[in-house]
């Protein structure tokens, strides 16, 4: 039984379940599916400085924080307690290319070669982890949403500005994964 629960799900099951988050949140209380707004709420709650963009009653958006805390709990259940011991079946071309840049494939979602405390204090590690995270926070707020807010919610409600946003995410991601990341991984070598 536990073995079955640990298995990963095929994309067509997962895609449908992700899509169903849209009506679930609408019916639960008229909430737009999206995660990055919670970053803004945390900033608004923690930063006392007078920044107009953060000067609003974040308590009214508290549902966001509960939803986010839920995702952490869900990550613990789905990724740790019931984590799939089998590695993802990634394309061998991707694995080979990363291998050539010094990143060795392992099970468990993130590369151990990058996401470890000593690599964080190297130049490539700092760029990938800290600058990467910074761009995720800066870019999603600048773009008014992330993959869930624009990619799933915006496209599900047929809004063309979201399509432009998602197109921009992908242009940035393709440039980054194809050219920037290999360059950064080889810095200082």
């Amino acid at each position: 039984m536990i073995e079955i629960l640990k298995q990963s799900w095929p994309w067509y099951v997962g895609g449908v379940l992700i899509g169903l988050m849209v009506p679930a949140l609408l019916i639960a209380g008229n909430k737009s599916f999206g995660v990055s707004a919670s970053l803004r709420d945390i900033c608004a709650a923690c930063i006392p400085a007078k920044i107009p963009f953060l000067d609003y009653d974040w308590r009214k958006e508290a549902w966001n924080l509960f939803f986010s805390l839920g995702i952490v709990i869900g990550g613990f259940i789905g990724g740790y307690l019931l984590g799939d011991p089998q590695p993802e079946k990634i394309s061998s071309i991707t694995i080979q290319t990363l291998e050539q840049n010094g990143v060795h494939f392992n099970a468990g979602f993130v590369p151990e070669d990058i996401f470890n405390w000593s690599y964080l204090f190297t130049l490539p590690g700092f760029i990938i982890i800290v600058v990467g995270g910074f761009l995720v926070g800066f870019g999603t707020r600048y773009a008014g949403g992330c993959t869930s807010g624009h990619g799933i919610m915006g496209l599900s409600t047929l809004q063309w500005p979201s399509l432009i946003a998602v197109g921009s995410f992908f242009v940035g991601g393709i440039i980054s994964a194809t050219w920037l990341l290999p360059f950064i991984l080889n810095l200082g070598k």
Partner: protein
Amino acid sequence: MKNLKYLLLGTLFGIILCKVQAVSWWRMQEMFRFDGFYMYGLFVTAIPTGILSVWLIKKFNIKTVSGEPIIIRKKKFNWGYVIGGLLFGIGWAFSGACPGPLLALIGAGKFVVIVVFISALFGTLVYSWLRPRLPH
């Protein structure tokens, strides 16, 4: 407690994100390099499911659990969608995660990802501060 349902939905979403490997750094590299179909498969099933659900909500005039009419907020285009979108895309391919998966990875015990998350909070703060001076 009225926020409990969002905690539960979030938990469900976190489990889904892990079980469909949408939290995987490897999957993001594969997607952005067009080496595999898996992530695209997720999008091409998730979006039509969302479209169909929203259509059904409108068609049958479905209300929220507390009986309110469902309102879908319109997004108004500004150039931030493009500039911010490009910057987010670059960061997404580096860290391998968008905000949802970041949270799920922390829950899954990938503690270095906490640094990615704090950096993302800092990015949001810097954007909020610079906002009046940025093109939109």
